[in-house]
């Protein structure tokens, strides 16, 4: 950009889809995702002078996009009470243990190591589908922690959640995703 005029049409063509996918993974709702991408582009255009070529244009745009996604989470938290657990938020593994707390059905080895699994595009798509099966509250908190990489402290502070509640939510979300991956993938192999 340095002193060149920005061709905003070309911007949208070059980065639009990438940014839309990135956002959709985090907010699920396509209309909201479009809106966020648009806001990010507009705000990038307004602050284009702050872009000094220290980073690539792409990472600069994604930096702005990340902020807009967090803003969306902040607005949306008004609609979802995050610091409470209702009945439907129960532990999906509740029946996995006997009365003594031992496994009824032993967890099996998935036959893949973490690094291998992360390279398997097909499996990752299955996981993205499983993510969409989480409730709004669980999805949002899980995404912030495991996909956005925010710390537990940041999430608790941002959403007024007790840390014990956060651990329970994350544990249940992980269990739900684990079961979903087994049903849709590992048990079929």
């Amino acid at each position: 950009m340095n002193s060149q005029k920005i061709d905003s049409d070309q911007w949208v063509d070059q980065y639009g889809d990438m940014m839309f996918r990135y956002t959709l993974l985090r907010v699920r709702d396509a209309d909201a995702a479009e809106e966020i991408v648009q806001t990010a582009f507009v705000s990038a255009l307004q602050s284009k002078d702050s872009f000094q070529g220290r980073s690539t244009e792409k990472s600069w745009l994604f930096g702005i996009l990340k902020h807009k996604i967090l803003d969306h989470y902040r607005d949306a938290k008004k609609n979802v009470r995050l610091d409470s657990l209702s009945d439907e938020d129960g532990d999906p593994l509740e029946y996995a243990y006997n009365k003594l707390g031992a496994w009824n059905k032993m967890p099996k080895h998935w036959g893949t190591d973490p690094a291998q699994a992360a390279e398997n595009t097909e499996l990752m798509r299955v996981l993205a589908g499983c993510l969409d099966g989480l409730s709004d509250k669980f999805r949002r908190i899980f995404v912030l922690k495991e996909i956005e990489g925010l710390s537990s402290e940041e999430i608790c502070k941002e959403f007024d959640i007790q840390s014990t509640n956060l651990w329970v939510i994350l544990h249940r979300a992980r269990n739900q995703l684990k079961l979903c991956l087994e049903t849709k993938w590992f048990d079929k192999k």
Partner: protein
Amino acid sequence: MKKLFSLSIMFLEKFMKLSCRDVSALVSEQMDRDLPFFRRLRLKFHLTICGACKNYQTQLETLKRMCASMGEEDSAVKQDISLSPPAKEKIKQALKH
């Protein structure tokens, strides 16, 4: 002396003992914070003797690794999805004002 020995074994067993249900919660919690020393010790002890819980831990680690990689900017996860042409047009228009 013998009694003291068996008593301390009993104490050790009771102290170290966690159910698999407790362990699964701790395995997850350990991903979100540093556990207090003795709890960490008990967890470690359980995981060395319980293959099922060890598998559970590997499963959660796999999930974690996959999520981190999914979060990258050019992750291929939603590769088949694009902005619709009208949406693109709308954004282009918004940038002209």
